[in-house]
């Protein structure tokens, strides 16, 4: 039995999936391709510039929101996929998937509060 037993989990999954759908292509383009392809200056991803961007009052909140929702979306989908691929021990899968998501969430919190 791999279904989530709470609408909360699915709600997070749906919200994270929606955010991922709208945000990730642009985000990956900016973080991985724009600078090497010369579309944005090398300053864009520099230490100084990113710290500057984070000074905006809302930026940390928005960044955390995006990271939190997307990582839980991915974690839940991976749990379902494990079941689809024949992994029977749902409790173990759940602990691993959500555990990693929780660890990522905590690390994000630690990171953002330290900037």
């Amino acid at each position: 039995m791999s279904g989530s037993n709470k609408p909360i989990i699915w709600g997070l999954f749906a919200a994270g999936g929606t955010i991922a759908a709208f945000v990730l292509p642009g985000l990956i383009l900016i973080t991985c391709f724009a600078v090497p392809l010369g579309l944005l200056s090398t300053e864009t991803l520099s230490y100084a510039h990113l710290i500057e961007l984070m000074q905006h009052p809302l930026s940390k909140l928005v960044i955390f929101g995006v990271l939190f929702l997307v990582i839980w979306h991915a974690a839940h989908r991976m749990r379902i996929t494990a079941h689809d691929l024949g992994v029977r021990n749902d409790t173990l899968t759940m602990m691993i998937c959500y555990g990693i998501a929780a660890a990522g969430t905590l690390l994000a919190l630690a990171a953002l509060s330290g900037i």
Partner: protein
Amino acid sequence: MNQRVIKLEILRYDPEQDDAPHFQTYTVPYQEDWVVLDAINYVKDELDRTLSYRWSCHMAVCGSCGMVVNGEPALACHAFLRDYPEKIRIEPLQNFPIERDLVIVMDDFMDKLGSVKPYVVAKEERDVDDGEHLQTPLELARFKQYTDCINCLLCYSACPQYALTDSFVGPAALALAHRYNLDSRDTGRSAREDVVSSNAGIWECSFVGACSEVCPKSVDPAAAIQQTKIASTVDYFMKFLKPWKRI
């Protein structure tokens, strides 16, 4: 004149004699306007009387002749020979026990269908003298598509989650629950919740969407289930925000 022929490879199983199902091949004349059901009927009438299968209306409204034709769930009366290659493999619907030949045991579905209360649960019992329920065309349009289900079980055959988890309520039953939940005459949503919103209900679905792809009546059970997930999630949060409000 040369009569064009096709070969039907049909999965046979005699519970009184066989240990396991096995394929048997029949050579059948090809007719331009024939469907797979016609070819199977030819086999039974002319070649092998022992072949067992369900069928009735021959026009895709009764839902009896569901089978797997060349790997794809289909209604045998809806699958034209001219759309298939010369060899056609016919098996009973996947994910159900085989009773005999192409006849499956559908008790599991019947139980699940019953469990979702597939009937109008009215707020109060109405007398015939009270007259009919009144419903606008707009209210009908909300759920009409989900009334088209003919219980043919092609969706259960296609659904990988039903294959992996026996207890999954399944596409058709959940689509029918949705049909009644959307019906303006019905007040039974909370009564259905225990089954629909259980772990074996909507939450077992991972939106593969195969069910809707194979449905011969365009019921779109996948959409029904997703809409139910959203409605259930909203209900869940509303319970915290407005605990006094009854669903």
